[in-house]
C-alpha cells in the first residue's frame, strides 16, 4: 500500500474521470457527487503523508517509486521516477485539499456540460499531482503539459465574456515557455550522458544536479528553465496572461489556478532551476529579485485601481508571488521556508478570496465594486469570513500571511537582497491599502444599491467550503511549526548543496573550461 501510495494518489483521479465519463450526461447532481467523492478519497489517500514524521528528520526522497517506462536501445531511457520530500509535501497536500473545495464550489455555479467540467477537473488533478512528485524531468514535462489542456477548456468553455481570448493567451504563454524548457532538458540530458551519468538513470533530476555544468552553459540552460517558470508564476513582465485567465475562468477554475497552478512555477525554481544550475542562479539572483520586487509593487498598485473584485484579487496574486520569489532567491533557510510557506498561504487565502468573489457573483451576477456596499448588514456571516480572509491576505499577525511574509522579509534582509527587502516591505503596506479599501467599499457603509437589500447570507454548503480554509489560516498563523519542521530538512539540504557548488566554482575562479559541445557523431 505505502509502496505505491503516490501512484495511487496521482492516478486515482484518472480512474474517477473514466467513471464520470460513463455516467449519463443529464445526471448533473450524480456527476458532481461522484467527482466530490473521488477528490475526497484522493485527499484521504494523501493524508498519511502529512502525518509522516520522517519528513521532519530526513531530507531524502520518501515513498519513491521507480520503473522503466520508455526504453529505446541506447537512445533514451525514460523512467517513471516519483517521490516526495519536504519541498513537495505541502504542495501535494494543498492540491488534494483544495480540489474537493473547488468541486464543492461548483454545485450551483456550473450547470452546463457538468460532465465535461468534472472530467477535466479530475484530469487536471492527476496532472498537478504528477508534476509535484515527478523526479524525472521527462516525466515532469509530460505532467506539466498535461495540466494545460484541462485548464484551457475550463476557461474557454465555462468562462466569462472574454473567455476565448483569455484561454488562448493562457495556453500560448505557458506553452511557449515550456517548449524552450524542453530543448534545455534535452541539452542537459545529452550533457549528462556525455559526463558519464549511467544511461539507466534517464532524466533523473537528482543525477542532473550532481553534474558540473560549465558556467556559460548554465546561464543559457537556467534562462530557458527560468523563463518557463517565470511565465507560470507569473513574474513581472510575463504576468499579463494571469489577470485575463483569472477573471474569465469560472470560480473553481480560478481557485485551482491561483491555489495550485501558479505554485508550479515557484516550485519549478526550487526543485529544478536552482539545484540544477546553482552558479547561474547566483548570476541571475539580482535580476530576478529585481523583477520580483517590481512585481510586488506593480501588482499592488494595479490591484488598487481595479473596479472589478476578481481582477483585484488576480493582481494581488502577482504581488504575493513576488514575495514568494523574493524569499526563494534569498537562498537562506528563513527566506526559502518563508517562500514555501507563503506558497501554501497564498493557495489558501487567495483560493478563499476567489471563492468569496464567486459567492458574490452567484448572488448578483456582477463583480464590480461599485455595485456593492454595506453588505455586512445583510450578510453578517459572510462579512466575518471575508474579513478574516482579508486579514490573512494582508498578512495580519495571527494569520498565515504574516508568518510567511515575515520569514521572507527576514530572509531577504539577511541575505544580499537587503535593499530589495526594504522596498518589498512597502508591498505589505500597499496590500493593506488595496484589500481594506476594497473591503470597505464592498462590505461597509450603508446599502446604496437596492438590489443588495435582499441578499441571502451564506448557505450551509458555502460555510462548509470556507471552514477548512479558515482553520488553516489560523493554524499556520499561530503554529506554523507543524508545517515548517517538515520542510526544513529538505530545504537545508538544498541550500547546502547549492552553496557548496557555488563555493567550488568561486574557488576555481572561473578557469574557463574548454568549450564543451555535445558530440556531433553518435
Amino acid at each position, binding site marked *: 500500500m505505502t509502496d505505491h501510495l503516490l501512484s495511487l494518489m496521482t492516478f486515482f483521479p484518472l480512474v474517477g474521470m473514466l467513471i464520470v465519463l460513463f455516467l449519463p450526461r443529464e445526471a448533473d447532481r450524480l456527476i458532481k457527487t461522484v467527482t466530490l467523492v473521488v477528490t475526497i478519497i484522493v485527499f484521504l489517500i494523501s493524508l498519511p503523508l502529512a502525518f509522516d514524521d520522517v519528513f521532519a528528520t530526513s531530507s531524502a526522497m520518501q515513498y519513491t517509486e521507480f520503473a522503466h517506462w*520508455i*526504453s*529505446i*536501445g541506447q*537512445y*533514451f531511457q525514460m523512467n517513471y521516477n516519483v517521490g516526495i520530500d519536504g519541498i513537495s509535501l505541502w504542495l501535494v497536500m494543498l492540491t488534494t485539499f483544495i480540489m474537493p473545495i473547488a468541486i464543492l464550489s461548483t454545485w450551483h455555479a456550473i450547470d452546463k*456540460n457538468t460532465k465535461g467540467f468534472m472530467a477535466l477537473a479530475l484530469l487536471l488533478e492527476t496532472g498537478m499531482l504528477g508534476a509535484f512528485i515527478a523526479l524525472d524531468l521527462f516525466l515532469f*514535462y*509530460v505532467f506539466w*503539459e*498535461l495540466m*494545460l*489542456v484541462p485548464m*484551457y*477548456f475550463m476557461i*474557454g*468553455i465555462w468562462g466569462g465574456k472574454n*473567455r*476565448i481570448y483569455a*484561454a*488562448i493567451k493562457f*495556453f*500560448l504563454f505557458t*506553452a*511557449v515557455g515550456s*517548449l*524552450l524548457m*524542453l*530543448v534545455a532538458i*534535452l*541539452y542537459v*540530458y*545529452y550533457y549528462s550522458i556525455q559526463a558519464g551519468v549511467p544511461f539507466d538513470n534517464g532524466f533523473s533530476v537528482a543525477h542532473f544536479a550532481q553534474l558540473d555544468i560549465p558556467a556559460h552553459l548554465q546561464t543559457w540552460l537556467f534562462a530557458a528553465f527560468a523563463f518557463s517558470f517565470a511565465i507560470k508564476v507569473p513574474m513581472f513582465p510575463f504576468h499579463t496572461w494571469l489577470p485575463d485567465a483569472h477573471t474569465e475562468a469560472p470560480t473553481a477554475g480560478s481557485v485551482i489556478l491561483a491555489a495550485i497552478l501558479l505554485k508550479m512555477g515557484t516550485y519549478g525554481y526550487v526543485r529544478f532551476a536552482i539545484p540544477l544550475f546553482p552558479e547561474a542562479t547566483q548570476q541571475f539572483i539580482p535580476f530576478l529579485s529585481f523583477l520580483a520586487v517590481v512585481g510586488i509593487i506593480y501588482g499592488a498598485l494595479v490591484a488598487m485601481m481595479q473596479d472589478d473584485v476578481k481582477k483585484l484579487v488576480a493582481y494581488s496574486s502577482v504581488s504575493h508571488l513576488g514575495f514568494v520569489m523574493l524569499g526563494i532567491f534569498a537562498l537562506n533557510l528563513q527566506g526559502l521556508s518563508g517562500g514555501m510557506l507563503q506558497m501554501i498561504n497564498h493557495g489558501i487565502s487567495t483560493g478563499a478570496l476567489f471563492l468569496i468573489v464567486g459567492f458574490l457573483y452567484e448572488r448578483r451576477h456582477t463583480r464590480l465594486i461599485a455595485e456593492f456596499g454595506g453588505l455586512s448588514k445583510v450578510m453578517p456571516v459572510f462579512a466575518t469570513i471575508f474579513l478574516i480572509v482579508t486579514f490573512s491576505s494582508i498578512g495580519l499577525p495571527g494569520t498565515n500571511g504574516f508568518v510567511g511574509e515575515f520569514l521572507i522579509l527576514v530572509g531577504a534582509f539577511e541575505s544580499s537582497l537587503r535593499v530589495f527587502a526594504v522596498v518589498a516591505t512597502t508591498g505589505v503596506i500597499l496590500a493593506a491599502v488595496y484589500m481594506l479599501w476594497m473591503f470597505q467599499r464592498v462590505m461597509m457603509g450603508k446599502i446604496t444599491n437596492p438590489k443588495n437589500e435582499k441578499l441571502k447570507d451564506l448557505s450551509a454548503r458555502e460555510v462548509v467550503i470556507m471552514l477548512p480554509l479558515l482553520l488553516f489560516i489560523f493554524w499556520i498563523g499561530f503554529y506554523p511549526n507543524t508545517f515548517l519542521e517538515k520542510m526544513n530538512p529538505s530545504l537545508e539540504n538544498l541550500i547546502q548543496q547549492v552553496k557548496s557548488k557555488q563555493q567550488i566554482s568561486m574557488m576555481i575562479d572561473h578557469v574557463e573550461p574548454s568549450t564543451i*559541445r*555535445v*558530440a*556531433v*557523431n*553518435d
Partner: protein
Amino acid sequence: MENLVQIAMQNVNFAAIMPSLIVTCFGMGLLLINVFLPRGTTRPAVWISLIGLVVAGISVVSGWGNPQYGFNDAVAMDNYAAFFCMIFLIAAGLTILMSDDYLTREGYPVSEYYPLILFATAGAMWMASGTDMMTIFLGLEVMSISLYVLAGFFRGQVRSNEAGLKYFLLGAFSTGFLLYGMALIYGVSGSTKLAEIGIYLNAHASLLSNPMTLAGLVLLSIGFLFKIAAAPFHMWTPDVYEGAPTPITAFMSAGPKAAAFAAFLRIMEYCFFSLKPEWTMMLWVLAVATMIIGNVIAISQTNLKRMLAYSSIAHAGYAMVGMVAANEIGYSGILFYMLAYTFMNVGAFAVLVLAGKKGEDNLTLEGFSGFGFKRPFLGVAMTIFLFSLMGLPPTAGFAGKFYIFAGAVKAGYIWLAVIGVLNSAVSLYYYLRVMVYMYFREPNEDFAWVAMPATVVLSIVIAILGVFYLGIIPGEVMEFAKQAIF
C-alpha cells in the same frame, strides 16, 4: 537487349518485391472484377482492397529482419523499406475505410478509385525499396500518376479538376528536375545504382566539387522537395489539398509524403554521404523556411482543409530537421514521425470527412461552431488529433517531435531545435483556434449532417489508438525504427 534481360533474370528474387507485388495483383484483379459489378456497387472493392493491404502487411511483417535484395540490386526489401511500407499500408487502409460513404455522398460511387489507391501504394513501396535511380523513378511515376487521377477524381467539380490539373502540371515539371538530376549524376558516376554512385563519388574526391555533381544533387533534391512540399516548392499543396477529395488529401499528406522522404533520405545517405556537410547546410535553411512558411500562413486560413495543408508543410519541415541532424536518432525520428503523422493527420481528415456536407462548403472554421457539443465523439477525436499535431504529451506527435529535436540537439544544432519548438508554439495558435470554434462558440446553424458510417468510425478509432499507443509507449515502435535505419 538480351544481355540486359539476362542480367535482370539472374537476380530474380520475388521476396524483394513481394508486398508491392501483392498490392499490384490485388489492384489489377480488382480492375477486372469491377467490370462485372453493377455500376455504383463499390462495397466489394473496399473489402477486396483491404484484404490486399492486410495480406501485403503480413508479408512485410514476416520479412522483418530478413532483408531481401533482387533484380540486380535494383530493389532492396530491407527493414528501412519494410518500415515505410507499413506506413503506406496503414495510410492506404485508413483512407479506404473512410472513402466509401464519402464517394457515395459526393455522387461518385466509382470503384476504380480503389485500384488507383492500391497502385499509388505500390508505387510508394518501390520508392522506399528502390536502390537504383530507375526503380525510384518508376515508383515515383506510378505513385504520382495514380494521384493525379485521384486528385481530380470528382470530374464534375471545378475545384477537384483544378487540383488534378495543377498537381499534374507542377508534378510533371518537378519530375523533369528530378530526372535531369539523375541524368547528371549518372553522367558523373556512370551508374544508376545508389550504392555504386556513393562509392564512386567517395573515391574520386575531385568530383565532389564538380559543378555537374552539385547541379545533379540540387536538381535531385528539388524533385523530392517538391513531393514533400518543402518551401519554396510548396505552392501546389494548399490548392491540391483543398480541391482533392478529402480521403485523397489524407492519403497524399501521409503516404506519398513518407515515400518521398524514404527515397530522398536513402539517396542522400547512399549516394551523397561524402557531401553531407553541404546538403545538411542546404536542408537546414530549407527546414527553417518550410517550418516558418507553413506555420505562419496556416494562421490566416479559414478553411480547415487548407489549414491542414499548410500545417502539413510545416510538419515536413519538422521531419527535415531530422535529416539535418543526420544521426541515428534524427533518422529513426523521421521514420517514427512519419508513422505518427499518418495516424494523426489521416485521423483529422477522417473527422473532416464526416463533418462535411455535400460539396464540402462547410469545412470552414465558422462551420465548425459548436461542433464539439453537437457531435461529441467527433469533437473529442478531432481534439486528440489536434493536440497530437501540436505535439503535446502524451500523444504520438509529441513523441515524434521529441525524437527529432533530440536528434538535432545531439548533433549540436541547438538553434535549429529552438527554431523548431518556437514554430511549434506558433502552430499552437491555429490548432487551438479550431477547438475554440468547436467548443467555445455556440452553434450557429442546425446540424443536419450525414450519419456516422461504421467504416469511417473504425478508421477514426484506429487512428486514436495509434496516436495514444505511439504517445504513451513509443518504445517498441521506436526500437523498430532504430533497426530500420541504415
